[in-house]
């Protein structure tokens, strides 16, 4: 009976092994771009382990921010190649997971989903990025919290308001944290300001917005 079980298990393993012709070294790639990088590029390598050529039917990325390119349309038996996935970082933050769906004429494995996981380093985490006062409201100061990312060291930040209608004051709260107090001079006029937040010795600039809004819309 044990022989039967072993034979059954082995037959399943052999069947699965024989099915896949285009074998991928990895179907998930993790990338760690630097803060200066505009793009992150992942390489998904494969080999045709079967006896028939494999043709790519389509290669489709999950979002407009990612492009994917094949080196060739046809992969002869035994040949290796790669699909290059390029992710445009833009103003994205945190962990970004994008997929590339590859369709081939391999009947055993017609569709493969490749995953590109990009960990974008975040020098400063600003919360909230928007403070507002309703028109006529008491012009009390509101606080924006700035946390420094784990991999970074920032001892000072510089905050500039684009409008003289708002004043800002920076306080070091310790443990890689800063508090920015934002205060409007008055709240009678509908004015706004872009607050530019820049870590010392860094070219990278972060933004927050302060604004006096009109009264709530009643619906």
């Amino acid at each position: 009976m044990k022989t039967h079980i072993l034979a059954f298990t082995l037959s399943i393993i052999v069947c699965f092994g024989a099915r896949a012709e285009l074998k991928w070294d990895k179907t998930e790639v993790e990338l760690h771009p630097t803060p200066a990088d505009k793009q992150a590029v992942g390489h998904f390598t494969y080999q045709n382990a079967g006896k028939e050529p494999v043709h790519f039917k389509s290669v489709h990325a999950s979002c407009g921010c990612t492009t994917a390119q094949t080196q060739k349309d046809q992969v002869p038996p035994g040949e290796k190649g790669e699909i290059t996935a390029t992710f445009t970082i833009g103003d994205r933050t945190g962990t970004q997971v994008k997929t590339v769906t590859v369709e081939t004429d391999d009947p055993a494995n017609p569709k493969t989903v490749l995953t590109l996981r990009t960990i974008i380093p975040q020098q400063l985490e600003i919360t909230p990025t928007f403070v507002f006062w309703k028109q006529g409201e008491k012009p009390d100061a509101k606080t924006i919290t700035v946390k420094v990312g784990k991999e970074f060291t920032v001892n000072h930040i510089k905050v500039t308001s684009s409008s003289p209608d708002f004043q800002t004051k920076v306080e070091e709260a310790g443990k890689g944290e800063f508090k920015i107090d934002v205060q409007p001079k008055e709240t009678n006029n509908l004015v706004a300001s872009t607050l530019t937040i820049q870590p010392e010795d860094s070219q990278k600039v972060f933004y927050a917005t302060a604004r006096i809004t009109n009264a709530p819309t009643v619906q």
Partner: protein
Amino acid sequence: MTSSLVRQALILAALALLPGVGEAIYFRHKISWQSPIPPSELVTVAQAHVWGENVIWVDARPDEEFARDHVPGALSLNEDRWNELLPQFLAVWSPGRKIVVYCSSLSCNASREIAVRLRKEAQLPDVFVLEGGWEAWLKSK
């Protein structure tokens, strides 16, 4: 005979379980990248129409798609140019207004990501994702 069958079944079940356990251990720190949007954060085109002028439509698609066509009055806000576009959006927002974010279709994720950033980073209330996105809007016309 029965005990032999049970033993075989248990052995097969254990064999089937092994890859699952292995995968669970290997992927233990890797959460699903796209959990479903809670129904309370979704809105249909019909519901959004009921809100009328109280809605700010936000187009989360890339610039080229927004330039081609968009919901009348919609503002472009995507993650390619978030820092540049967010102040333009905030200049229009006022308390009490509802925000409806859309991207291309049911399968796209951009509207969800923009909605999350508006809620978490800008701390705005009443942010919704349009069910079915731009495709649903076109069908409703």
